[in-house]
């Protein structure tokens, strides 16, 4: 029998779009440390300014095709701030906000979008895998990290980040089923941004929410307002706690909106109405509502907001400088890290390419 209580179909909201706390939101707010409240804001602004700058850099030909994430800052920052250093992150290609919060330096993220694999090098102690591009392949891999945590008796959860399109892939099903059967310390974090390139969610699923699919796997399913950073954080914190307590997996559906195109190579006006984009931009913006809340609560002033934005811009510019200053890889880097030790045939191919120059970064 399906336990309907495992499924919470109502999207959780703690901060209303007008910036006012709900009743439960007020309780959560009162218990939240002040530095955490500030961190939500600071990271969201940092992530947004990074994102906007990246789109510009792409237009200027200074980075390659880029996947913008503006509009999804609350989902990414709120979820990532609920994780510890011991937790594993298996991201898709639109999760640079998550990666940043988890400790990936901004210049490396830019390097990645410049086409440099060096950008995927995780600093020591940062458990962030490189962005997964084939759609949903990262989800079963997160199950593997969770299974390893279980075998090692380490209190660590693995988080698979993916979009609504990924829920139509077989790997999503296989992973949910695996997590259910073995009660794995896993969080499935789905950012339902309503579109997989041009295809709307209604073409991905006849079931109206991602969250309710959880009941088919006997895992917990929660739908949250993905533009409400407080709600996302609270849902994620609970999911992480449950995972570490041996209570199994949680599927979180964060309902959000991709304000820009799928990538800089896409034109979203071909498949979305202006009015829809305007509604999400003007009425449901994740940063605007949280900014209002902070100001009302006396934790932010327009002056301090401006100063913080300025600081974020400087941080981004420093990262751009750093990334652009990175020397181009030598041609032999083409053969770096195919295997731990390069087999003789690949050594020959490398020599042929480089004319004997064996150096590689």
């Amino acid at each position, binding site marked *: 029998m399906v336990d309907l209580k495992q499924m919470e179909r109502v999207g959780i909201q703690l901060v209303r779009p007008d910036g006012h706390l709900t009743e439960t939101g007020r309780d959560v707010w009162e218990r939240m440390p002040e530095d955490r409240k500030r961190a939500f804001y600071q990271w969201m602004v940092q992530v947004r300014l990074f994102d906007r700058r990246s789109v510009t850099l792409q237009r200027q030909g200074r980075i390659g095709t880029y996947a913008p994430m503006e509009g999804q800052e609350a989902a990414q920052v709120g979820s990532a701030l609920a994780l510890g250093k011991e937790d594993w992150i298996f991201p898709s290609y639109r999760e640079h906000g998550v990666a940043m919060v988890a400790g990936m330096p901004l210049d490396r993220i830019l390097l990645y979008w410049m086409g440099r694999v060096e950008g995927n090098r995780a600093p020591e102690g940062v458990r962030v895998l490189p962005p997964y591009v084939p759609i949903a392949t990262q989800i079963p*891999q997160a*199950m593997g990290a969770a299974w390893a945590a279980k075998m090692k008796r380490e209190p660590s959860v693995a988080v698979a980040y993916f979009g609504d399109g990924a829920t139509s892939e077989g*790997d999503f099903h296989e992973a949910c089923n695996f997590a259910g059967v073995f009660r794995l310390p896993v969080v499935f974090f789905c950012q339902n941004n309503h579109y997989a390139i041009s295809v709307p969610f209604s073409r991905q699923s006849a079931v109206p929410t991602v969250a309710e699919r959880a009941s088919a796997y006997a895992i917990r399913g929660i739908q949250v307002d993905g533009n409400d950073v407080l709600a996302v954080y609270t849902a994620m914190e609970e999911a992480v706690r449950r995972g570490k307590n041996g209570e199994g997996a949680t599927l979180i559906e964060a309902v959000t909106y991709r304000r820009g195109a799928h990538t800089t190579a896409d034109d979203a006006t071909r498949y979305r109405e202006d009015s829809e984009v305007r509604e999400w931009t003007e009425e449901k913006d994740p940063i605007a509502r949280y900014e209002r809340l902070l100001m009302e609560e006396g934790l932010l002033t327009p002056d301090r907001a401006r100063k913080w934005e300025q600081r974020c811009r400087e941080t981004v510019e420093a990262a751009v400088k750093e990334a652009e200053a990175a020397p181009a890889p030598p041609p032999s880097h083409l053969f770096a890290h195919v295997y731990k030790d390069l087999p003789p045939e690949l050594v020959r191919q490398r020599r042929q390419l480089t004319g004997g120059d064996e150096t590689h970064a």
Partner: protein
Amino acid sequence: MPVISYIDAVTQALREEMERDEKVFVLGEDVGVRGGVFRATGGLIEDFGPERVLDTPLTESAIAGVSIGASVYGMRPVAEMQFADFIMPAVNQIVSEAAKMRYRSNNSWHCPMVIRAPYGGGVHGALYHSQSVEKIFAGVPGLKIVTPSTPHDVKGLLKSAVRDEDPVLFFEHKRCYRLIKGEVPEEDYTVPIGKAEVKREGTDVTVISYGLTLHFALKAAEELEKEGISVHVLDLRTLVPLDREAVLEAVARTGKALIIHEDNLTGGFGGEVASVIAEHAFFELDAPVRRLCGPDVPAMPYSPPLEKEFILNPEKVTAAIRDLAEF
């Protein structure tokens, strides 16, 4: 030295590696309580428990994906695909992910994992329990592909595969499981991945093969010796990375090369071996390079006469060698 079967060599290697390193664990369909449908993992669950001998749902893509994730976290998973035929749902994980993890992460992460799969036919397995799949992966850099033919090599190569720092596909010919027996040392030893081995010395014709057909070549060589034809037999043992030196050396011994495998002719690994010979040993050749392979039909039939027609045997191999010897 004890004589054991090919499949017992698999089990021994797994058991010894699990005893040696607690990070090694086995996962797959029916590998636990059932001990594997072929019993390759027989007895392991009793000694290592259900966590380290994990019976999974029917979920090949997740079996591969879980192995990737666990290996990134420092474990040493040995996944079993129940039949090589059923590896297809996992191809995305293997080709797009396992093969590329080290490369695309700039060496931050890697996948020290093994995927074992019984392949090949001649056991009345029909269309979906008889396929050879090695050619599907042979052109995917980042993977290693091991195809042993003897119990000695099975044990030594499987141990090497478990200890390897990169993903290894370990293909076991299922007809060899109980048919092929051989001496296997009881002590710990490894056979290096990427090294072919001369299994018989000869002077007239060089046969290059792996898996079950290697044994057909050895049988044929015995027969042909009576006719005065001396056959040199090279067992590739590893397809990727290919031991090119050994191939070229073996060809140079006789000037005539016959490549034999059960996988079908077109796109089969023999084409790669033939190219290497053509590129680097052209002037050693006294005859065109020949291939004796499975026919280019979609699958091995269930019908016994048709299966017999599909599959190679010592007689077909003998005829092909004799023909080349007389060229």
